């Protein structure tokens, strides 16, 4: 019997293929966006983990010479012979690939490409021609080394080999860049200062550097994935609701024929589960495509913004597609739960079709929840901090706003009814009001999509304005040149001295300031900086004080993270404590910065030489200078970049960063339009008893259809009007809360009314398109069907 019932149930989909497609499409789309984002995140995380695992970067303490100097091999041997359980690492660029040399015999467990216990390969690793471990794509990029390439799951763009071979390939015999300190050390170890006084030891980092820095970025993506999935569920809800409405009759008949209710419910649930799995599978496959398409951009963003290497190639992970399927199943359960529940409670002899007005119950609790959520969001904005709290605030604001939509719309519609003159307008308002409960979910989806659009586009556009302004300030030099070593830098400086108005050396080294990773710069006292740089906060006469070495400048990230305001003292290096003179906006990287005047920098870090230079000259002469640097000094083109090119590069990184966001945004809007169409289709069938009398009173089907279209547009317009403040609230939260937490900068908020107008137009168009098909069906409805209402023949 089950089979008979099942085939009867499935017959519905057979007769309504469009409904089936909608259900599958809605679920598949939601799952695709969600799992696509998850795939990107998983790939990135795997890359960070591979980086950490292959290099032991964060998990071990390290000994370095400070100021980026090499450690002589003899010092390493000295440390070993003094009882230090340390292991040498050398790093350098071979072509474009980062080559890392390790000593597998002393490396702490798990460092290096050889899995523990795989000692067999050790001989090959150490033997004459040696081995280089890297991903296939990295091996392909390596210049010829003579060593055997071995494909291994190491960090992207990184190749690992024996330290002896690495020293040879990098032409740095006897040099070591850092020593990994094993967590377990022998009892007899002598103090570091006694053995090698120039070296300093840093503690292992808590967690993975790249993973920590990029956490916020991935949380961002996840939030968008979840939003898309939620909107997808609105569609599923619409489709399932419609299907259930239309099948009430069939269910009643089946039960009258003796099919047990429990069996029916189970079969329907089973049917939905199968559909969910099918849609989930399609969604996961689509998600893979989405991820594969977006991943190169995301990888480029992460590299540009955070310096984190992420593979551009996507691996299929079981955990990922399983979670995609689970999301599809769970989502369907959520979306269809209500419909199943009401079906289970339907009395056997109930009218096969509910009167639509039964739905029109205004729930007071919805208002209460909406107000509570909005209040919570406000409270979080005022008193909360942290990225998670930021997103919680966003979530509360969006859900609260969405829940508040139906009561607000009801209010407006009641007002419209009160103001309406004449029978037809009054009927129009009343009927619209009456339809509201059936449409409210779809309208909420539209509200969320529009608010997200307004919010994100405001954020991105504000960011773009700020960022381009920042680039103009910051990239004042006409040409930037990088020398390959100190000798070339000297020759170069002498060469350009008379050909430019100024040569500004860029001195830098990476360090830790107040416990945060930071870059320390040495800046020459020059008008270029005075004229162009703008401060968020500064002391009077900041440049003069800086030039005298009376303090430092820091970027906004350091100011926010370490809580270092003006006048706060900063330990720049052992024995050098200086106050903060100014805080500048820095939208180029997430890491802290400290700027010293050149003289202080050179005195404090005498071993750091400038290899990068900014050149000031007549813009018209830039090309000629490039040419002569290339021809006469032999500088490669890759070592010179002009202002326009570097700006274009920065902007392209910027665009890529938000390309993903924009794409997700547009997709959510499309999905919301879909949800409206499904809701209208659902309602259309239920509304016949309301429409038939109006038709019988003389309103043509064509006019009724036109009124349907108008209604959709009015509702969309009202929703859009309410979405605007919500979207602006979202933009504010993104700029003032999430951005500060994620990137360490707070951006000024700009408004873009034309963009909002265009978006509103788009939303109206979407609603119009969504209503078009139901309206067209109404205009073509056979009069017999409308007459049937009066014969109770539905």
């Amino acid at each position, binding site marked *: 019997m089950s089979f008979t019932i099942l085939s009867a149930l499935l017959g519905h989909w057979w007769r309504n293929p469009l409904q089936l497609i909608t259900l599958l499409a809605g679920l598949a789309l939601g799952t695709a966006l969600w799992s696509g984002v998850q795939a990107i995140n998983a790939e990135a995380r795997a890359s960070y983990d591979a980086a950490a695992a292959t290099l032991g970067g964060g998990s071990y303490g390290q000994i370095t010479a400070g100021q980026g100097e090499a450690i002589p091999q003899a010092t390493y*041997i000295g440390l070993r*012979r003094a*009882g230090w*359980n340390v292991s040498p690492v050398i790093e350098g660029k071979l072509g474009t690939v980062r080559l890392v040399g390790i000593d597998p015999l002393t490396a702490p467990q798990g460092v290096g490409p050889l899995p523990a216990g795989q000692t067999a390969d050790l001989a090959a690793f150490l033997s004459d021609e040696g081995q280089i471990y890297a991903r296939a794509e990295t091996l392909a990029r390596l210049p010829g080394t003579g060593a055997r390439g071995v494909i291994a799951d190491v960090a992207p763009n990184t190749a690992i080999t024996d330290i002896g071979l690495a*020293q040879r390939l990098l032409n740095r015999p006897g040099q070591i860049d850092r020593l990994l300190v094993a967590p377990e050390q*022998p*009892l*007899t170890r002598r103090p570091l200062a006694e053995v090698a006084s120039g070296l300093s030891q840093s503690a292992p980092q808590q967690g993975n550097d790249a993973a920590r820095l990029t956490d916020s970025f991935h949380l961002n993506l996840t939030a968008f994935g979840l939003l898309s999935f939620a909107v997808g569920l609105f569609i599923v809800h619409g489709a399932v609701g419609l299907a259930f409405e239309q099948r009430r009759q069939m269910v009643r008949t089946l039960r009258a024929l003796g099919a047990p209710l429990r069996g029916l419910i189970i079969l329907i649930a089973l049917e939905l589960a199968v559909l969910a799995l099918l849609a989930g599978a399609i969604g996961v496959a689509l998600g893979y495509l989405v991820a594969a398409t977006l991943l190169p951009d995301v990888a480029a963003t992460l590299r540009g913004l955070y310096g984190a290497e992420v593979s551009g190639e996507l691996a299929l992970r079981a955990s990922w597609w399983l979670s995609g399927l689970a999301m599809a199943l769970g989502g369907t359960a959520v979306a269809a739960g209500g419909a199943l529940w009401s079906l289970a409670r339907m009395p056997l002899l109930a009218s096969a079709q509910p009167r639509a007005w039964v739905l029109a119950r205004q729930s007071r609790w919805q208002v209460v929840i909406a107000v509570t959520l909005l209040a919570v969001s406000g409270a979080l904005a005022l008193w909360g901090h942290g990225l998670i709290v930021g997103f919680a605030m966003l979530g509360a604001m969006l859900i609260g706003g969405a829940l508040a939509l139906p009561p607000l719309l009801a209010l407006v519609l009641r007002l419209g009814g009160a103001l309406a003159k004449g029978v037809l307008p009054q009927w129009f308002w009343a009927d619209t009001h009456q339809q509201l409960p059936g449409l409210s979910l779809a309208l909420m989806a539209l509200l969320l999509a529009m608010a997200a659009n307004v919010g994100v586009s405001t954020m991105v556009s504000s960011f773009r304005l700020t960022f381009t302004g920042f680039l103009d300030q910051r990239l004042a030099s006409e040409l930037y040149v990088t020398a390959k070593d100190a000798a070339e830098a000297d020759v170069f400086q002498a060469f350009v001295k008379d050909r430019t108005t100024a040569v500004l050396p860029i001195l830098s080294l990476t360090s830790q300031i107040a416990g945060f990773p930071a870059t320390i710069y040495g800046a020459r006292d020059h008008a270029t900086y005075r004229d162009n740089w703008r401060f968020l906060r500064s002391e009077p006469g900041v440049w003069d004080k800086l030039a005298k070495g009376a303090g430092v400048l820091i970027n906004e990230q350091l100011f926010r993270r370490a809580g270092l305001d003006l006048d706060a003292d900063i330990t720049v290096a052992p024995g050098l404590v200086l106050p903060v003179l100014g805080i500048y906006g820095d939208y180029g990287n997430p890491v802290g910065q400290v700027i010293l005047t050149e003289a202080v920098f050179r005195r404090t870090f005498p071993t750091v030489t400038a290899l990068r230079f900014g050149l000031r000259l007549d813009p018209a002469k830039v090309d000629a200078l490039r040419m002569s640097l290339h021809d006469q000094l032999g500088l490669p083109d890759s070592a010179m970049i002009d202002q326009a090119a570097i700006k274009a590069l920065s902007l392209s990184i910027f665009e890529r960063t938000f390309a993903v966001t924009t794409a997700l945004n547009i997709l959510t809007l499309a999905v919301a339009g879909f949800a409206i169409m499904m809701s209208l289709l659902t309602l259309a069938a239920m509304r016949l008893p309301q429409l038939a009398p109006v038709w019988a009173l003389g309103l043509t089907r064509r006019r009724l259809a036109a009124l349907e279209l108008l209604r959709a547009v009015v509702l969309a317009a009202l929703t859009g009007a309410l979405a605007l403040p919500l979207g602006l609230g979202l933009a504010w939260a993104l700029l003032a809360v999430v951005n500060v937490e994620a990137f360490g900068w707070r951006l000024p908020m700009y408004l873009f009314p034309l963009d909002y107008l265009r978006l509103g137009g788009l939303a109206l168009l979407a609603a119009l398109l969504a209503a078009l098909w139901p309206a067209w069906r109404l205009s073509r409805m056979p009069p017999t069907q409308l007459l049937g209402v009066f014969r109770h023949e539905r």
Partner: protein
Amino acid sequence: MNVKVLLLLIWLPVQAMAQGFAGLGTAGGNFAQPQPDTVLQFPADHGPHPDYRIEWWYVTANLTGPDGTPYGLQWTLFRSALAPHDGQGWETPQLWMGHAAVTTPQKQFVAEHLARGGIGQAGVEADPFSAWIDDWVLQGANFGKLHMAGSGVDFAYDVGLTAKGPLVLHGQKGYSVKSGSGQASYYYSQPFFKLSGTLTLPEGKVPVTGTAWLDHEWSSQPLAQDQTGWDWFSLSFDRGDKLMGFVLRGAKDYTAATWIGADGTSEALPDGAFSALPLATHSVAGHDMPVDWHVILPKHGIDVRVKALNPDAWMATSVPYWEGPVTVSGSQAGVGYLEMTGYDH
């Protein structure tokens, strides 16, 4: 004989790994092979022999604390060559491994260090004698008076060794046969060291005195294909005599022994003269180890029971084995060291 080592297997190909200690039975390749009738030259032969595949300097000691507590101590440096030549820098094919251990009646302390040759991190020089890996050393102006130190995360020792007798060459003047089919190594010992120094244990420092036994052995293929491991004994009897004996377990067990008189005279004993039979086993680290033995050497009236001081003297190193101090009772009383390898299965 300290055939021990073979740990070196770590560095042999995977098939050898699969065979555990039996990997020592694989072919010697282009490496030099021990030849009978070679005359060992000292002090030169105290140093390394890079053209042989494996080599070790192995010190074990039986010690006593001020309260009479017995202790065992081990200091070992292994050399393993990937190719039969020496060289400077990272490119040298010579690899080094050190093991240090202290055994108390209750506890076993173990440490392992690995190093590349050619960069100064580990090595051996013959004269003045110096063997080292990291901060572990065995060195002195001459071979008769050595300073020895080793350490781990939770223990350390620093002791002095003074030779009270001559070197002892095993087999035919140092050419020690290891199987019926002719596998052999060069093998000599200094079994007459007096030792005094300090152990550092979690409880604190312990002054100790006792006797130590040094082995130096090198070869390229010391085991036959069918041999899977060995049981090695170095026993010092209270009367002053000493006995080195081993059983190589294979299709047919192969035994050899050296009887060392109190005056330093030695006598090599042929296959079968020496025998050792397990009396009881003890489960340690998942292996059933015979830690109680019946050892017989009829020619010299030896019929003794050899029992582990601490049955848990397991060396949890890259290639694990059992090595620890023993007590001797029966026809003679005394102390000694026992090493057991190849019990992985």
